[in-house]
């Protein structure tokens, strides 16, 4: 009896772990877990993907309330540091609908000049990877209309 219990214990534990992981992976916006929880568990990249639409709608609504709505397509994508390749926030990009559709991320390049000025160059790009071979391809006719910083 004890041996039989031992034999079935491993698969049961494995099954439980898989069930827990699966439960966590199907967490979507609108469930009890908020943006902060998602960032802590899965990181900024996943959180931006999961919350892209609600954040985009929130920004557009805020601009609409100021009677400053943008005439163009908008989308929220992660910001990638060109130096490290890591996700460091999110940005709302704006432009013609066919161009915005191709944007996957915003590449950020930080530079300093004359010792007093620092510049964050923000380039909408067609990939979510900026490390490795080849420079990321910028999307002309698009730009940034909002930045999103996360508290972790």
């Amino acid at each position, binding site marked *: 009896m004890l041996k039989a219990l031992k034999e079935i214990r491993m698969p049961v534990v494995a099954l439980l772990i898989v069930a827990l992981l699966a439960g966590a992976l199907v967490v979507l916006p609108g469930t009890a877990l908020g943006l902060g929880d998602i960032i802590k568990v899965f990181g900024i990249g996943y959180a931006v993907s999961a919350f892209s639409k609600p954040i985009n709608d929130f920004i557009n609504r*805020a601009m609409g309330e100021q009677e400053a709505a943008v005439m163009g397509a908008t989308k929220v994508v992660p910001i990638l540091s060109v130096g490290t390749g890591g996700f460091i926030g999110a940005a709302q990009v704006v432009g013609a609908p066919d161009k915005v559709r191709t944007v996957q991320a915003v590449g950020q390049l930080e530079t300093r000049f004359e010792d007093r000025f620092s510049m964050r160059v923000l380039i909408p790009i067609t990939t979510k990877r900026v490390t490795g071979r080849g420079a990321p391809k910028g999307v002309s006719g698009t730009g940034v209309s909002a930045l999103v910083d996360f508290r972790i």
Partner: protein
Amino acid sequence: MRPILVRWAVPAIAVVLLAVMVGVVYAAIATSRPVTLDGREAGEVLVDGQVVFRVRTDAGGFTAEQRAAQVADRLNDALQAGAGPQDVRATTVAGNQVVMARDMLIITADPAEAAANGLTPEQLAREWQGNLVVALGGERPPSGPPPREGDVDWTGQADKVVPILSVGTPGISLGAARVSGPRDKIAATKAVAQLNAEFQRTARIRAFIPVSDLNITRPKRVQGVSVNALIDMRLVGF
């Protein structure tokens, strides 16, 4: 021969001047006034004394009356720029139903305003468009699907650096931004208004609105212009 020319020249010039003055005087003028509708304070926007919009709800930190005054100001800007009934349209901008005059946003038919009028946002925008067109001497446009977003030129032909000004605290500069867009739009851009907001207490949002006027208490967005770099200046070195 010469006295005859002189005799005719004076009345001719007078007639031309009169025509120009009549043209200037005849341009429609938008005004606003506070009203009480169903026991609630609201604002009306009028064109030459004819009511075109009724603003019933507060939004963006402004009362309905203040919003009506802002709409009248924007409408006057559009009319002074030569906008006529043919330039007025109801359209969708970033998911918002709006009324535009040329490329100037006049009023947003947000869901709360539409609900207060017993209409959908799209129906309200179309209703307002019709009222404005009629007040400007045009014919009420037939019902049909409104044009969609995407008819603005977003080509980055030119760029320049402008100051970033805070919407929340007017007069406070928050650095500078490099903006890009079509040449004429970049020429019209004077600053970038920064609007701060918070999403779910976890995300701090800074929205950038390229504007054509340094008075950003009512930002006048320049469509087709976006930000492609932010510049910070270190004021004190350690």
